[in-house]
């Protein structure tokens, strides 16, 4: 039985937006609540169904071109996600999901409309048309988070062809500055966007597994200050191992 007070985490279209183990973010969020004695409910939203309103956290993952377009089409048919966001719901969108929550993104030879939840747009390249498209960004990525978020350095992996920039005069600020890797791939060397409780990033897949503080930040947006957590030692051991392997000072 899920109590009425359970935190509801919606995993949006995992069949379409789940190429890189993105479902891991739902596992991490739910488990970190349960470890604190708080109830959590993960709601799988199958592709083709209307996204339920009233969830606390919405997760969007990565996907190949055709599934990404299908997901964007499906999401645009309903305003429930937009309404939830306006009411303060938390969104974490990674990789293709990040592109989908922006204004527009490329797939195949076309540019498709996104959801417009955040003021970014994605293209293969923003260089002059006569320039060859930049190579796919594939590899480890390290991001120094925007300081007011109060987060330690973000670790992850990226794999995307698109380049993403903020719309002129748009809302929101970058998630952080890229120390290793490509991220948004724009001249300001940033990655992602944060606008109120919506985060988009190229740190793909189960990004919260390596960044427990980011997971707790999202949860604190729902709950306010969280009870302390005696988390399994493995989680910090992983961060230490990755920081060593990537030769990054924490």
């Amino acid at each position, binding site marked *: 039985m899920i109590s009425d007070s359970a935190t509801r985490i919606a995993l949006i279209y*995992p*069949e*379409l937006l*789940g*190429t*890189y*183990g*993105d*479902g*891991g973010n739902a*596992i*991490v969020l739910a*488990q970190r609540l349960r470890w604190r004695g708080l109830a959590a409910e993960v709601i799988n939203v199958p*592709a*083709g169904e209307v996204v339920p309103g009233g969830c606390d956290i919405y997760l969007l993952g990565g996907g*190949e*071109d*055709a*599934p990404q*377009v*299908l997901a964007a089409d499906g999401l645009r048919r309903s305003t429930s996600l937009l309404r939830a966001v306006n009411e303060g719901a938390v969104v974490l969108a990674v990789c293709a999901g990040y592109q989908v929550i922006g204004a527009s993104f490329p797939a195949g030879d076309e540019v498709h409309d996104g959801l417009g939840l955040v003021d970014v747009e994605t293209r293969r390249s923003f260089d002059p048309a006569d320039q060859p498209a930049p190579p796919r960004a*594939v*590899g*480890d990525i390290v991001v120094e988070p925007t300081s007011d978020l109060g987060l330690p350095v973000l670790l992850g*992996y990226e*794999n995307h062809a698109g380049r993403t920039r903020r719309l002129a005069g748009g809302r929101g600020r970058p998630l952080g500055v890229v120390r290793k890797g490509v991220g948004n791939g724009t001249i300001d060397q940033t990655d992602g966007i944060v606008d109120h409780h919506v985060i988009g990033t190229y740190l*793909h*897949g*189960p990004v919260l*597994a*390596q960044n427990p503080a980011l997971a707790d930040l999202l949860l604190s947006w729902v709950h306010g200050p969280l009870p302390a957590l005696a988390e*399994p030692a*493995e*989680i910090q*051991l*992983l961060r230490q*191992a*990755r920081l060593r392997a990537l030769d990054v000072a924490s």
Partner: protein
Amino acid sequence: MPGSDDFTVVGASLGVAPCGDVQGLCNRRDESWHADEAMTTPPPRRFSTRTRAALAVEKLASSASRRLGRGSGEMIGGKLALQVSPRILTEVAAGRMAVCVSGTNGKTTTTRLLARALGTLGPVKSNSGGANMAPGVLAALSRPPFDAAAALEVDEIWLPKVARQILPRAVVLLNISRDQLDRSNETRRIASLWRELGADLPAATVVANVDDPLVAWAASGWSNQIWVSVGQNWTADAMVCPQCARLLHRNSSGWWCDCGLARPEPIVAVTGPGELLWFGRHIRASIDLPGRVNLGNAAMAAAAAKLFGVEVADALAAMTGLDDVQGRYQEVELGESGVRGRLLLAKNPAGWVEMMELLNTAPARPVIIDFNSQTADGRDPSWIWDVPFERLAGRDVLVTGERKEDMSVRLAYAEVPHTVHPDAESAASTVFDKTVDVVANYTAFRDILGRVAPVGTTR
């Protein structure tokens, strides 16, 4: 070759090095400069001068590189020969009974099973060592007899290029799932390449897995099909119609799309443990390799062998007795502890789900998970979050490998208690059981195989 960026070489060095002969053991140590079989059996006169020269180059380069201890000499020889004679694959494959086997999971095993089945008709050449790009395929075909049948494992991306030159009589298409996400992340693109290949091989028959929509769509464009149902545990990579990009419908009996694409009716199917539907009748079928997944591989191989006149009973009999494939399913001594490990390879989510099924059919042994993320494994370990590790709860789980911390965190969130160890041998030394299962991904598996001895042998 840890950390190498050359996937070809990494692939070639998995386990026993590749060799052209099917009958288990490679006799390459007996080969030498003077006892050169190519000298006693010259290449057929139908070969062009270029190809004859290329074969000589291949022979020289591979034995030289082997003598220098570089390992996979065929790869270097094969690469050189392809440069000397670009048409060499077509020439050395001409006139043979040839089958190409491709797919994300199971191609090495299926190729070995197929080679055994074709072996009932005469000599067979095969790249049984996992060297599955053009140089490895060439190496398998560059030694006499030049009219031997050929059972060829071919990398998914390389298949169109290789098969257009080999012109095989049959092509076995197993499955397409995400693997090595940072190498090629477009499953539909592979399906599309395979579909286009069919148009260029009008005389070939495709033996195709109906339970994988990507494979079925690719194969439905070919002139001749044998549809096989092997069952599929992993559907996450085929939710979107490869033909029209709409969402597929699924139920227990299959899958279909509003555009009309649907699961073809299979003429061969795995219908239960030890049971096949075989061209209209139900037959008992078993091989020594464990699990439903391997019976499916055997069914695919037997269906291809049937095209050459091999009876299914003979094919299955020949496949029985194969109990390890490049070390997979083999039992080894794990260090000095006296603990034996059954080696299992799982290099992507689909493979892990298959292995879970195998783990659960055995008595609940401890499981050692050995996990790396080198180039050949895919640098990105994210995919472990797609594997339902929760199913290992209640089992003794031990973790090792270069990315053991990632695996450990995955298990922690799955609430599977486990211990972490520097290597598989030291993990084994901590268990009380006599036998454990070891599930490793690509380079981890290769490295274990390089360190341990099979049960009953001394090193």
